[in-house]
């Protein structure tokens, strides 16, 4: 009996990375805090010295969030001479926020993304769109990065990072590339009609088999994704300045389509927007530490 064996090349798997800001020295700092953002797909740790980003790491969330938390935090500290024990205060956020063993407190990614966006993009930010692995959040905030109101996508992951991963796999294009690929069409095809991740995949597959190019299908998929996200944004109401955080913020295919539909430009990120949640948590950690030690 013949049986072809199954190869799985993981186009959805994005690279994990870390970095240290060399021109900063934690030895000279009064307050060393960290924010650990355990998302449903990616986990991020940001270490802050006196409220400035010092080092960070981004990796995929594992099955056991405690372990993931320890791994990502340790990796962020790698080679800095710092260790988890030396951190003054750690705040956990994201899906697994309550499972960060060394965090003194957990705060939702909603509050953290608003605060983090305020740090990354400055006080003019009023609307934050965070496109995460399985959730999509539209947040309205004030000049301090305090949340005024927010909305999350309904119980459907269409228009989230997870959907993109499934799609990248389908058209065998690395996840970091799909956005770019989707833009390389001379004319925008109609969006895939289906929002359910599985059916959108099936629909895209059918299109590919009808002879559509990868680019064209990618465009159709991204367009549908953008439509979904716009629905959410219009519900919460969009006000300038508008920024996008989370992993998908790096997907030009989604971002440019959003900007086209909304007729509003998203601010250029000064640093990796996937860090917004962890940064916000780190900043809250600083505030909490100062509160605890009576410095505020």
């Amino acid at each position: 009996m013949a049986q072809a064996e199954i190869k799985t090349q993981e186009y959805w798997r994005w690279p994990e990375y870390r970095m240290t800001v060399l021109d900063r020295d934690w030895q000279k700092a009064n307050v060393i805090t960290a924010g650990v953002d355990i998302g449903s797909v990616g986990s991020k740790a940001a270490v802050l010295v006196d409220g400035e980003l010092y080092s960070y790491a981004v990796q995929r969330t594992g099955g056991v969030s405690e372990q993931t938390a320890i791994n990502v935090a340790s990796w962020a500290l790698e080679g800095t001479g710092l260790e988890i024990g030396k951190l003054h205060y750690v705040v956990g956020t994201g899906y697994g926020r309550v499972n960060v063993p060394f965090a003194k407190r957990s705060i939702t990614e909603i509050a953290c993304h608003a605060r983090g966006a305020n740090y990354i993009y400055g006080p003019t930010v009023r609307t934050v769109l965070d496109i995460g692995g399985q959730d999509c959040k539209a947040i309205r905030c004030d000049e301090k990065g305090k949340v005024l109101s927010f909305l999350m996508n309904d119980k459907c992951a269409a228009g989230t990072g997870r959907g993109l991963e499934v799609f990248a796999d389908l058209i065998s294009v690395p996840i970091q590339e799909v956005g770019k690929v989707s833009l390389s069409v001379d004319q925008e095809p109609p969006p895939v009609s289906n929002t359910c991740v599985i059916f959108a995949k099936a629909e895209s597959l059918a299109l590919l088999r009808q002879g559509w190019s990868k680019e064209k299908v990618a465009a159709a998929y991204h367009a549908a994704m953008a439509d979904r996200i716009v629905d959410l944004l219009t519900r919460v109401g969009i006000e300038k300045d508008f920024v996008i955080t989370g992993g998908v913020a790096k997907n030009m295919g989604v971002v440019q389509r959003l900007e086209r539909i909304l007729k509003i430009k998203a601010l250029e990120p000064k640093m990796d927007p996937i860090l917004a949640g962890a940064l916000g948590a780190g900043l809250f950690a600083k505030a909490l530490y100062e509160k605890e030690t009576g410095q505020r």
Partner: protein
Amino acid sequence: MITAGVDVGAKFAKVVILRDGQVIARAKALVGLDLLKSASDVFETALKDAGISRSDIQRVVATGMGGNAILQKPPINADQVVSVVVAGAAGVYHAVPTAKTVIDVGAEEGRGIKVEGGKVRDFVINERCAAGAGTFIEAMARALEVKVEDLGPLSLKSMNTIPMNAQCCVFAESEVVSLIHSKISKEDISRAIHDAIAGRISSMVLRIGVEKDVVLIGGCALNPGFIPPLEKELHTSIIVPEFPEYIGALGAAVIAANPLR
């Protein structure tokens, strides 16, 4: 008389070659973007396996999502296309003649078919939501970070039931993630996943009514974790024929052998 059935499914293409009612070859492979090519390759393998050539085969009947792609197209030159429902019924009649109810769970579709002597009396196919289909299991396996084939066995180790809402596949996936984060064991989560999918399938099949014998076919029939909860939901024992994923192709081959059906 030699006939062949080719089932071009959403994930796999399957071929069955029949000589006077006896299966002489089976083959399957993942389908790529080019349906005709994928199907033809599997077809070739099956021919080799049977030690015959296309000209030895009187009739070829195609079925499955991509069946039309090989209709009267070389090298297979299928003579006819029949729907998965009709093929499934015919295949089950050949494999388990006593069957009254057929449950067919493939990659993207779940189906329930009421059969009488190989004829379709009524059927139901899952509509817009893919929960309750093979892809669902795959997505869950990825969320749990276990191999798809391990998920079923894992679930059998669990003693606990956790209600899980499987309306939407990815929604369920998020539930899985939150279960992971709330320290539920992989065994229990796998169990919850299979209970949920069994719930979806059975509630669909109940529409057409469940009459013994109940036969489970399609790729998901290979998943052991799926059968106990399904039997529990439907209050009946379930028969899984040999090579359940080939039943559609078998049915097509059977229909090819009896063109007057």
